Structure formats: C-alpha cells, structure tokens
C-alpha cells in the first residue's frame, strides 16, 4: 500500500489555505459550470432546436401573408424572435438545485469562497452559453438572406443585447432555485417564458395588434427588446428603439437579479 509513503509527503507540506479573492472564486465557479455544459447536451439541444424550428415555421407559414400585409422583410423581422427563444430561460439553475440537494453547495459554503461568486460564476457560464446559442441562429438568418443594416458592429451589439436579456432572465430561475432548492419549482419557472415571449410582437408589429394583446404587449419589456434588436437588423443605428430595448433589459434585470441576490443571501445566511 502506498498510503504510508504518501501521507508522509502530506506531512512535509507547508501549504496553508488563504482567501483566493473574488475574481479567482468567480473564475473557479464559472470554469466548473462551463466544463459541465458539453457534458449535459440534453439541456442545450432543445435551446438550439426550438428557435430554429420556430424561425423556419414562422417564416414559412406567416412570411408571405405578413410581407404582403405589412411590407416587412419578415425574415429579418423574425430573426430577433428566434434569438429571444434561444436565450430566454437558459440557466444553470437546475445544476444549482442539484448541488443544493446533493450537499455540494454546502461543501462550497465550507470553503472561504466569496458567496456572491457562487451565483455570478454560474451566470458567467450562462453568458458563454447564450452567446454560443445565438451564433447558429444568426447563421441561419444569413443563409435565408437576412443582412444587418448596422454591419459587423451591429451583429456584435445584437448578440450582446440578446445575451444581456438572457442573462437578466436567469435571475428568475436562480431566485426560485435558491429559495426553494426544489427541481420541480425550477422546472416550472419555464412558464414565465410564455407571457414574455408570446404576448408581444413576436409575429406582428405592434400597430397590427389589437385589443388586450396590444395593451399587454405595450407593457411587456420583450416588445421593446425586440424593437431594439429589429432596429439593429432592419433600420441601422436607431438609438431610440435601441435605448428603449436596453432600458427594458435593465428593468427586468434589476427585478430578477434583486430577487436572485435576496434568495442567495437567505440561502447562505447560516440558518
């Protein structure tokens, strides 16, 4: 048995634990979460397939009618919708709940890790994921003939704006995960996706909506996000819709991330 020899190697060790610091902690948590992404393809594949499916079906089924009625380039009009479908609701919240249930979250709390890094590290991985998922959708847009009025910088802005939205939305499932530690509750948070994604200008411009749907769409932040993203694709650097889009992201982010941080404080409060 080698243990006798090796425990003496441990005995000779002068290593002492110290605080790694916030950024090192953040990087460590993010690294673990990013490593896990390709190991759980079952959680990523739907996020890849759903937007592509909706884009093809919407453009194929509604495109000719919508273009005739509104004079819009419906492919360009739908590209931001596909992006929103790709990036909304994706998070490491399920993995976080698993950590809570298995006790691994407690193991992390036993280390001198900065508590905020436990949440923000996961969000760094989410950012990597949502940016990655926007790429095939944009590629599909190019293949179908969509061109960006804002050029390459506009494409980057488009990706970052969509990713910022995706990241802000993760606050909701993280808040539920940290508050409840219940995988069922986290899974049900997906329901939030539907009013945000469908009670808006997903299929038609705002002026074509009527009645209650129009009223709801006007207070739905996704309406302004879509307008900002569409401006980048179809109009150019139209700062008014882009600014409103960013403001909508900021409002949702403030609410969701405040909830997530409050839930984190509750979870790490030591009972």
């Amino acid at each position, binding site marked *: *048995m*080698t*243990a*006798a*020899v*090796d*425990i*003496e*190697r*441990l*005995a000779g*060790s002068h*290593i*002492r*634990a*110290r*605080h*790694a*610091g916030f950024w*090192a*902690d953040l990087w*460590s948590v993010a*690294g*673990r979460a990013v*490593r*896990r992404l390709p*190991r*759980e393809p079952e959680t990523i594949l739907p996020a890849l397939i759903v937007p592509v499916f909706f884009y093809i079906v919407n453009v194929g089924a509604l495109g000719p009618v919508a273009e005739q009625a509104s004079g819009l380039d419906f492919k360009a009009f739908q590209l931001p919708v596909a992006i929103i479908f790709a990036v909304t609701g994706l998070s490491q919240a399920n*993995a976080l709940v698993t*950590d809570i249930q*298995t*006790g*691994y979250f*407690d*193991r*992390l*709390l*036993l*280390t*001198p*890790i900065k508590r905020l890094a436990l949440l923000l590290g996961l969000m760094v991985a989410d950012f990597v994921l949502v940016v990655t998922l926007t790429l095939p959708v944009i590629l599909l847009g190019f293949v179908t003939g969509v061109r960006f009025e804002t050029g390459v910088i506009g494409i980057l802005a488009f990706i970052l704006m969509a990713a910022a939205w995706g990241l802000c939305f993760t606050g909701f499932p993280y808040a539920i995960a940290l508050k409840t530690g219940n995988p069922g509750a986290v899974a049900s948070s997906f329901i939030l996706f539907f009013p945000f994604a469908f009670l808006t200008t997903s299929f038609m411009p705002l002026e074509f909506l009527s009645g209650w749907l129009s009223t709801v769409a006007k207070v739905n932040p996704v309406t302004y996000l879509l307008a900002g993203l569409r401006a980048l694709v179809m109009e150019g650097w139209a700062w008014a819709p882009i600014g409103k889009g960013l403001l909508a992201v900021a409002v949702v982010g403030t609410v969701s991330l405040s909830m997530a941080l409050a839930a984190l404080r509750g979870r790490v409060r*030591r*009972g």
Partner: protein
Amino acid sequence: MTDYAIVAQGLQRSFGDTKAVDGVDLTVAAGEIYGFLGPNGAGKSTTVRMLCTLLKPTGGSARVAGHDVTHDPETVRLRIGVALQDAALDDKQTGREILRLQGRLYGLRKLEIDQRVAALAELVDLGDALDQRIGTYSGGMKRRLDLAAALVHNPQVLFLDEPTTGLDPISRAKVWEEVRRLNEVLGMTIFLTTQYLEEADQLAHRVGIIDHGRLVAEGTPTELKRKVGEDLVVLETDEAELAAEAIRRIRSLGSAAVDVQGDEVVVRTQDGAAAISPVAVALARKKIGVRSLTVRTPTLDDVFLQLTGTRLDDEGADA
C-alpha cells in the same frame, strides 16, 4: 497548558420550539481523535454544522482552531476540512477536477495544487479513476475522494460526519486506516461523528455521547466502560421482569445493578464469572426459561444503555 482545537461552551441550536442541541460543553485537544457518538436525531450533525460554520448557534459559543465560529467564521473555514454525510460531490466532474477546484477555492497556487493532488490521489488510492467522472464511482470511492477533498488545503482540524455510514466492511476498514494515519503522521485533530459503537471504540481517543441534544457522558472508551462496571452478565428471557426480581434477591451479588431492557436483563458486577452460577441457580429455582446467558466486558453500547435507557443499536440508522 493544553492546546485545544475545539472548545464549545453551552452550545445551543433551536429550530422553532425544538432544541436540536441543548447546551453542549466539550473540548477537543489538538492532535486528538474525538468520537461524537449518538443515535439518529441526537444532535450530532447539527453540532458539526455549527462547529463548521454552516449553521449559526442560537446560544452558547464555540471556538475552532482558535477562532470563534460565530464572529470569525471565515478564518475558521481556512483552518478546517470537512467531509459531510453522503459524500457531497458533483457527478459530472472528474475526481481530479473536484480536487483542483477545492485547491483553487482555498487560494492554493497551481504548483501547490499539483503537489497536493498527486499526494492525495495516492493516499485515497483511486488510481486511474481520478480522471473519470464521479458518477461512475462506487460509494466507497466517493467517500475516499470526499476525504481527499477535505484535505486539499492541509487543514488543522478535520470534521468527519458519519464517514463510514453505508459502506461495506472492507471500505469501512480502509477509511479507519486512513483516519488513523492522518492523526498519527500529521497530528491532525479529527472530530468524528458516528452512530457505530465499534467505530468510536476503535478510532477515538475520547468519546462524547450525545442524546436528545445533550452531552450525557465524555471520556476515553475505557473510562466510559469502567463507569458501567467491570463485567456484565446478560441474559435473554421472555420473563425479564421476573428474572430481574429473582436476581436482585441474590445476596452474594451485593450491590450489583440489575437493569431490564426489553427481553434482556443486564447485571453489572465486579466479577462476572463468580456471578453467573448464582444467577443460573436463582432462575432455575423460579423456573424462568432463559434463551441465552453470557458474561462479557462492557461495550460503549452498555454505556449508552446505562445513560439513556435505550440501546444505540435499536435506534435506527443515519443521523
């Protein structure tokens, strides 16, 4: 002056109206293996969670490695290593990834992590499995990796919460061996909770027995057993109360204590060999049928029985 690794004074923890830990006082000297023994729900894990800074005490105080767990938890975390119940690991990572992550979170440099992972990998004897995902590990392998993860940063005090619960006898013996070596070679203080009497008896220099949130006895295993008496005469019968009454009337047994526990009668006496004959005769005279009659030295379970009125073995598993 004794250098204490752990000092708890009047430590309390309530959950609503329930007092899970009710005024525990204990001291653990540096370099000692302390066995914290108790049945399911006695307060073992709650005490460990307070000492490890996962849970705030609702009363009393505790110092671990010289630092207060309530007021200076961050420094305590730097000094302790913890393996909680059920080997808390991430099935999607490899053993090596878990150890390296632990090292980074404790602020170790890359070279330090390389050294520690190399030494620990061989200590816990995981071989090539270290580069496989933890989801493929057996229960024993997970426990050993969990132990290695608790040791990455070279802690002064190691907490092991029921380290062998659910393990097969071979894996259990392996963990015991590693715990002994860590203590003997590194001089590491080890606070070990267990519901296994044999584990406390084999490993611990001193044992604390907790029941219903209170520390009911503390001492070396030998000291605790001595409190029960030199020898025990144990008999099993369907008429335990009648048998106990008959034994209490035996004059030659003097002040020997006679207790009934279910269908078992336990006679604590200074000389078991001398007691067994009059006991057998007294039972025969009263025509009391006996399934077994044995003489043995006390175990920690007998200590537990004397202190709490129940046997630890009857209490079920897993605190």
